[in-house]
Structure formats: C-alpha cells, structure tokens
C-alpha cells in the first residue's frame, strides 16, 4: 500500500488523489497550512521527525519520498 498516498488522500479529503507528480506549485490545495498538516501526518505514519528546514524546503511528493527514505511501496 502506498502509505504516502493514503496520508495525502486523508489530509486533502480526496480519496482518488494521484500524488506522484504533485508539487506545491501545481496543486493549489497544497498551501502552507495543508503542508504542515501533511508533515504532522507523515511523521506519525512513518515514525520519522523532520527538521524545521526540511519542512520548509520540501515542495513536492518526490522530495517527500526522498526525505522519508523509503524507495519502494511508499
């Protein structure tokens, strides 16, 4: 199961959301408040902690996947 997609779908309340190409620039709902909600939910789902700089610098699903450090099935 794509855990990251589950988090996105839950935060944005969009059950069919495809996330792979999403960035903060091409997805209007991904504003600064949604970003913090995503980070909170990702930290809980993946049992990771991000630094303030990592939170601020992350602008795409691709970058989030790298940050989480899971290569397959995330």
């Amino acid at each position, binding site marked *: 199961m794509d855990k990251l997609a589950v988090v996105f779908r839950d935060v944005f*309340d969009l059950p069919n959301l495809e996330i792979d190409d999403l960035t903060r620039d091409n997805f209007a*709902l991904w*504003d*600064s*408040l*949604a*970003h*913090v*909600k995503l*980070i*909170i939910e990702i*930290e*809980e789902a993946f049992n990771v902690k991000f630094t*303030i700089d990592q*939170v*601020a610098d992350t602008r795409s699903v691709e970058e989030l996947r790298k940050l989480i450090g899971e290569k397959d099935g995330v």
Partner: protein
Amino acid sequence: MPTLRTHHVGVLVKDVPKALKSYTNDLGYEVRSALFHDPIQTAFVQFLALPGDSVLLELVAPDGPESRLTNGLKKGGGINHICYAVPAIEEAILHFGDHGFMSIHPPQPAVAFNGRRIAWLMNRDHLLVELVEQGGTNDL
C-alpha cells in the same frame, strides 16, 4: 517563557454579517470592530466580545472561492484557532517551535490589527495558533 495573553478565539463562518447577527441577538455579544478585509489572509474578519469579557471572538469568513479558508469551511467551519497576544513575536515563535509547533506563516502585518504582525503555527494535535503582537490599551 513568553508572556501569553489570550486575545481571541477564531470561528470560521460562511458569512460574517449573518453570523454576527446570531451571536449578538442570540448570545448577547457586542460588536468590537468594523468588518475588515485582509487580502493577505484572504479573509473577512470582525471581532465581538461578551460584555465585560476581555477575550474576543473573531468571526472569519473566506473572501471568495480561492480563499485559503474555503477548504476548511467545506469541512464544516466552527472553532478554528486560538490567538495569543505576545510582547515579542519572534521570541514567542521560537518558544512554540521548541515545544512541537510548526510554523505555517512567518510574521505578516494584519489589517485588523492596524499593521501589527501575526504569525500562524500548528502542533501535532492540529491545534492552530495565531500569535499577534501585543497592542496598546485602546487597540484590538
């Protein structure tokens, strides 16, 4: 630890004038400010208070379909945030950051507070906190 004073509780509504009538007519609130449009917050806001109460109630509504508040309203609105007045906003942000809050917006001037700056943070319980620079006695 920074000195915090509860400034207001923000309530997300569809329409400020309509909600205001309900709070004043049904619950006895008094109007404490004009209706402001804050383009940075993409919102209309107006402040009320109960007689003798120092904590304000802020009615907040999206200023259009593109407002960043529109999505929250789709989920039902209601109590949205708590706002603390602080003497030094940067110091307070650092303190909140040290205690699990993530910064949503750095300090920005707010129309309703005559340009005094506000900042937004959220903790892991999804508590949305607004900080506002403390004003003078006659300020909101």
